[in-house]
């Protein structure tokens, strides 16, 4: 009976399994193949020599540093917001979460471009500053003041801001999901047992929300470390991250081998960080991910 039953469900899964093998496993095997071959199809480790050049090493370094910085800023900004949203009565909470998600439906190319419009040399922020300086000039004490536009484009701060802005909802949502699932009686118990709000937060809320934090961190870090559009737009093409290198290798240079080697290393890097992260989180974090 049991065998029969499993056979039935296995046959239901067959289409799905075949699909996954052809369109997930096989493509990854292709990446592996191109990583370890040269353009003539001969087996080689030469692509790793390219990866070892100072330029590429530096590129990996910057990508990881920017992505880490963006993830930390996201977490610090998102956690308090998630706490506020989780404390809203359930009826209004869905509206509050919808409002967090809504900007995600503007194509992120456009969102990144509007950031550029804001921070350009003659962008909105500089225009506002200029107008402000113009007003100040009317006051005799400031009449000699001159306005020089602030240069934001190309700074690491702006690229990190771009990452934070584009991926912020990914951090908020899983934390909200976890926080709303915490039994409110636990907080009462903590206060009854002598916790101050701060120690109650540190000892009850924070540990219980760990799985949400872990999935938030992965959901921000993975796209941030592999992005190519944000960096090239907000730096005017001056800064190139790993994603930029991969995109260029595949779509402009047509060098599949180097591109594959880059993405192979990127994948290993992400797998390692996911592994480390998951050791800090609960098993549930997988289910709460989206």
């Amino acid at each position, binding site marked *: 009976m049991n065998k029969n039953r499993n056979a039935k469900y296995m046959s239901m*899964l067959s289409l799905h399994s075949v699909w996954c093998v052809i369109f997930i496993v096989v493509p990854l095997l292709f990446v592996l193949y191109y990583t370890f071959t040269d353009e003539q199809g001969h087996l080689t480790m030469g692509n790793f020599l390219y990866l070892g050049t100072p330029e590429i090493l530096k590129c990996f370094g910057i990508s990881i540093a920017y992505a880490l910085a963006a993830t930390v800023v996201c977490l610090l900004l998102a956690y308090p917001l998630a706490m506020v949203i989780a404390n809203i009565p359930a009826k209004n909470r869905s509206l509050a979460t919808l409002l967090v998600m809504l900007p995600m439906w503007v*194509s992120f190319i456009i969102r990144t471009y509007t950031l550029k419009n804001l921070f350009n040399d003659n962008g909105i922020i500089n225009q506002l500053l200029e107008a402000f300086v113009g007003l100040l000039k009317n006051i005799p004490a400031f009449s000699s003041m001159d306005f020089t536009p602030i240069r934001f484009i190309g700074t690491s701060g702006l690229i990190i801001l771009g990452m934070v802005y584009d991926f912020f909802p990914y951090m908020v949502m899983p934390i909200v999901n976890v926080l709303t699932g915490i039994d409110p009686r636990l907080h009462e118990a903590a206060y009854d047992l002598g916790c101050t709000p701060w120690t109650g937060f540190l000892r009850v809320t924070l540990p219980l929300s760990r799985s949400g934090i872990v999935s938030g961190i992965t959901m921000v870090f*993975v796209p941030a470390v*592999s992005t190519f559009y944000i960096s090239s737009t907000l730096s005017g093409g001056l800064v190139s991250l790993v994603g930029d290198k991969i995109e260029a290798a595949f779509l402009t240079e047509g060098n599949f081998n180097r591109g594959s080697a880059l993405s192979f290393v990127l994948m290993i890097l992400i797998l390692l960080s996911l592994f480390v992260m998951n050791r800090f989180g609960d098993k549930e974090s997988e289910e709460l991910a989206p």
Partner: protein
Amino acid sequence: MKKLGRFYAGLMYLLLYAPILVMVLYSFNAKKSTSTLSFSYGAEKYTFGHWYREVFASGGALIPLRNSLILALLTAFISMVMGTLAAYALYKLRLKYVKRVITSVTNIPMMNPDIVTGLSMMLLFATTFYVMGAGGTGFATLLIAHVTFCLPYVILSIMPRLRQMDKNLPEAAMDLGCTPIQSFFMVQLPFLAPAVLSGFVMAFTLSLDDYVVSLFTSGPSFETLPIYVYNMARRSVPPSIYAISTLFLVLVLGLLILSNTMQSRLEKKISSHSERTQKNQ
């Protein structure tokens, strides 16, 4: 403390929506370039709402928009059907090891960066077309890629609902004379409907917004809206792109409200139905 929280949340929402506001403002720009914002419509030939009229007059963006919608609808439908079947079978399957392997493989596109998903598929398609000596990337390759990265999200949205389902429900249905297939379609599927629907909506929006995977798997024969916008943005961004995006946001907002009301109605219907059946007992 509470006031401080409200203030903080308000500030965060303001920052989240500031660039969106910039987008809407630029869609009414009085200049052709988006390097500066200006509303003095008299200075140049552009009048209020010019860029919206241009979107519809030139028709340039309407074809990509239509393509995007067709692709997203088909992707959502296929991944909903495949995902529901797969989630149901995975839930029922008693072979722990097989279950774990299939789930992990399905989740790869969710864990992998989009760029790797995209380029790995590009390698598969390029090699296939090379071996076959014919064919090229276009609608079919895009559809395959989109279904593949949407599947894990659909399954993930259905799984929790499956776990909530009373284990006796299918048995009760069969005791009352349902065949297994009837029990699935008439009893279990209606219970799963809200989760299936939210999986559909999720796949639809993911497909609609995707541009990284599409960049690697689309061809010149079939351009989606994000690809079209990306290609235009490379040169310079005319305000008409902001106009399209504003229209798009309004469209999505409408769809979202529609699906939300549909979903809450479905849930109400189901809960009132189960209340009635409980009363009858």
